[in-house]
């Protein structure tokens, strides 16, 4: 492909297709579930087909910035490079899987609204990773965060509304911080675009202000301690597909933002000079330990998964802020690994909730004999979360560990292991109690299959295979991509 001379149209068109499709769903929404699913799926597939052919081009190390002279004064820009494209493909793929799940998920009312906003959030999140400068990113980031609240508030109960407001106010606080940071960066550097090695040249109060602003804005999205407060409540109240969307896609945009500003706004040389990244690193470690401990303590399945997400996002942030190549590889790989693992767990939890209405872990004993398929997938994902080889998270932990040693911090490796132990402590008992135990004995006879709608079972299977498959083949493509991404940052 002779992409160097022609201006790439794919990013803009992909997003436009997704946005148009979401509008279209709103227009015809009440006509039928199947049509809505078909439209969403074909729009996402189209976007995938537009972006996927760019991968050889970006894998070869090419970068292209596309600038549109709309939205004065700075214009809208996209940047096609390996990191953006791979994350966009991941988001689209998981979004596609989730579309089928959502299509089959029994939402009580307001399906049209839900599905429209769902696709809109997906489109914006793809925009976030494809955006070529801070302002374009801000645009998509805001649109994504603000529209997500419609998904959270879906059930419109008292607790739901208070959880949503918590989310909304925190998001707006984050946006304000982002805005301040944006102004500080513009004041210091005179531009807002990504550049290798960073655009900030010197430390100083304004630079620090910008750093804090970005960390607050992105850290909030990534559920970083102490900005995680919205997460458990929102996860506890929102419908399962919305939670999964948030976990697999939206949280990752926060991690992505931290990665971008680390390497393309501040630059690792500057950060190593002033060692601000260590503050984020400490917060990431606290997130990991705090999230895992809280997950262990809570008895509500969805909230447990939310706290576990705080810990898992801590891994990614840790990988980014250790500033070593191996750690970054681990962090980037973990974006994919966590999407698959947590996606499976959340979809299974959603299936249980939809089928039985049970969400307290104590009530889940013996559920494996009523929903064997769901609970087998849940168990596989739980083992993945503990980091057993050859599943995905083993690979990311492996690289994070190597990076920690590279940074001269073997204690960080110990933190990862403690967290893995806690993962085992809060996931495995669910899986064990689902199948085994004295009180389940009489259930053996009554073994019945799950009878989930096809879309739900299919999406759970795809994500479970995603947990397992990549370590088994001869070549691990996501790992190769993660390494290539890292190589682009540490040249």
């Amino acid at each position, binding site marked *: 492909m002779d992409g160097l001379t022609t201006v790439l149209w794919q990013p803009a068109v992909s997003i436009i297709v997704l946005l148009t499709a979401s509008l279209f769903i709103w227009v015809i929404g009440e006509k039928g579930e199947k049509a809505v699913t078909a439209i969403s799926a074909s729009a996402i597939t189209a976007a995938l087909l537009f972006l996927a052919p760019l991968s050889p081009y970006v894998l070869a190390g090419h970068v292209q910035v596309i600038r549109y002279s709309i939205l004065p004064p700075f214009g809208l820009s996209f940047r096609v490079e390996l990191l953006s494209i791979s994350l966009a493909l991941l988001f689209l793929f998981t979004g596609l899987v989730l579309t089928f799940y959502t299509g089959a998920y029994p939402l009580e009312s307001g399906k049209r609204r839900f599905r429209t906003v769902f696709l809109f959030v997906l489109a914006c999140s793809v925009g976030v990773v494809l955006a070529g400068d801070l302002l374009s990113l801000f645009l998509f980031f805001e649109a994504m965060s603000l529209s997500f609240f419609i998904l959270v508030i879906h059930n419109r109960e008292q607790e739901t509304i208070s959880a949503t407001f918590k989310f909304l106010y925190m998001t707006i606080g984050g946006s304000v911080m982002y805005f301040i940071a944006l102004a500080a960066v513009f004041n210091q550097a005179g531009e807002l675009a990504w550049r290798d090695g960073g655009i900030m040249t010197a430390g100083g109060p304004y630079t620090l202000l910008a750093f804090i602003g970005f960390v607050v804005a992105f850290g909030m999205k990534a559920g970083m301690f102490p900005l995680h407060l919205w997460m458990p409540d929102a996860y506890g109240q929102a419908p399962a597909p919305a939670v999964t969307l948030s976990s697999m896609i939206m949280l990752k945009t926060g991690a992505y933002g931290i990665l971008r500003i680390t390497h393309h706004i501040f630059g690792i040389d500057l950060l190593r000079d002033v060692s601000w990244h260590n503050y984020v690193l400490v917060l990431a470690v606290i997130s990991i330990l705090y999230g895992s401990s809280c997950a262990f303590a809570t008895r509500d399945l969805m909230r447990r998964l939310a706290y576990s997400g705080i810990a898992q996002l801590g891994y990614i942030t840790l990988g980014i802020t250790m500033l070593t190549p191996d750690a970054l590889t681990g962090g980037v790989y973990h974006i994919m690994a966590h999407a698959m693992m947590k996606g499976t767990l959340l979809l299974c939890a959603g299936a249980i909730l939809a089928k039985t209405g049970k969400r307290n872990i104590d009530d889940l004993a013996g559920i494996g004999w009523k929903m064997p398929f769901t609970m087998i997938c849940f168990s596989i994902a739980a083992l993945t979360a503990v980091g057993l080889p050859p599943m995905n998270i083993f690979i990311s932990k492996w690289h994070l*560990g*190597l990076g920690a040693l590279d940074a001269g911090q073997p204690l960080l490796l110990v933190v990862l*292991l403690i967290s893995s132990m806690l993962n085992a402590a809060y996931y495995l008992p669910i899986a*064990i109690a689902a199948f085994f135990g004295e009180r389940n004995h009489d259930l*053996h006879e009554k073994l019945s299959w799950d009878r989930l709608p096809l879309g739900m079972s299919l999406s759970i299977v795809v994500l479970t295979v995603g947990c397992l498959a990549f370590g088994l083949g*001869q070549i691990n493509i996501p790992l190769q991509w993660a390494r290539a991404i890292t190589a682009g940052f540490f040249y």
Partner: protein
Amino acid sequence: MHHLPAVSVLLPFLFAIMIILFSRRVIVIKVLAVVGSFVSLAVVAAMFPALMSGETLGTGIPYLTFPLPISFRADSLSIFLALILSFCYLLATIYSLGYMGHSHAPERYYSLLVASQGAIVGVFMAYSLIGLFLFFEIMAVLSFLLVIHEEDEPAMFSGSKYLFMTVGAGLAVFFGLVVTYYLAGRLDFVPGGYITQSSPYAAYALFAFLAGFGLKAGMFPFHIWLPDAHPAAPAPVSALLSGCMIKTGAYGIIRVIHFVYGLDVVRAISFDRVLMVLAVITILLGSALAMQQDHLKRRLAYSSVAQIGYVLLGISLLTERAMFGALFHIFSHALMKGTLFLCAGAIITQTGKKYISQLAGIGYQMPVVMISFTIAAVTMVGIPPFNAFISKWHLAVASLETGQSALVALLVLSSLLNAVYYFPIVINAFFSNENKSVKTSFIRDEVPASMIWTTALMALLCVGFAFIYPNWPVIAASNIASAIF
């Protein structure tokens, strides 16, 4: 020939899948389980010539990709251990036909049993630390499911204890792996080791491995899962846990200190001293606690703790003769402790008695089983010509050679303790004066034939090898020990 290591690992898994697929009829499950176990043993046995010649088998075809690919290879150490343990697996599988005759979920039990045989062979055949770790974890999950097979409250509790401790052990090994990879950039096995520079990181890694593998082996202070898990599991599974699975921990330590880290590093950070101290404590503590138990299987479990202490002691002396003693003790302990657990299972099946104090006069009700028990108990004490004599003898001589004469006293003391806690059971079984009213003429054992004859065969092998020429376990173990040093 060079495909055999991979085949021996994958075949049991294949059979496990077949058992699940054809689980309609119980008889099919049982046939498949025994055939699968036998065929895997046969494949391992086919590698016997390589064991004797010291050749390394393997195609070098890599599998999986996670950080490093694995390829199955087998040197004589792998084949030696795989052969012994596969044989124990076959006997335990046949024994299960009787013991688990009317148990629930036969398809689950047998498929897990056969799959765990594959996992344990995989531990030995995956010729790198990373492959060892992979099969180690698979084995942990499978054996957890076997331990909780009864699904009653004690089984669930001790199973969970075992699972979480093993997961912890796995994470300690993971720590060691990452550090080792960071230091050397490789994780394969090379005789003599390839990390020759002592450094703090090397020390962290080695002690992490010690914790991880030591936990698996039941070493003090990580032995606490073992006395709970062994009694809770079904008898054949206890025999396998004790006879086979805890040996993989000792195997891991051998591989780490002789095939990854050089002996200089091991000595420089006084790893061998620490291991020796822990081994001594393990022996004494295991024996002392075994004496206090009235529950038969718990006594056997604590005795296993003590016996694995011998193996670790042999490893820690770092001499050829001590290594020979350790390897041979793995072999002899697998047989004798296997026998004892199978006997305990037979007693439970026939009489339902679990406590030693109830066993007065049982020798007249179950003569074959209790004679097997006696043979194994005598072996345990280490009297010639029984197997364990050979290992204890070499351990004692090796202790003298390294100037650790105190260890000889320890070995003698421990043998004495063995006698103290095994012989009363035997004496009480045959010469009890408590219940004279019980029949004093022998009657036939009333347990299924598959249980009696596997138990008897295993007991026979505790002594049988002394009368066979050439005594291949001795030759193989001494070849391996001399190849290591």
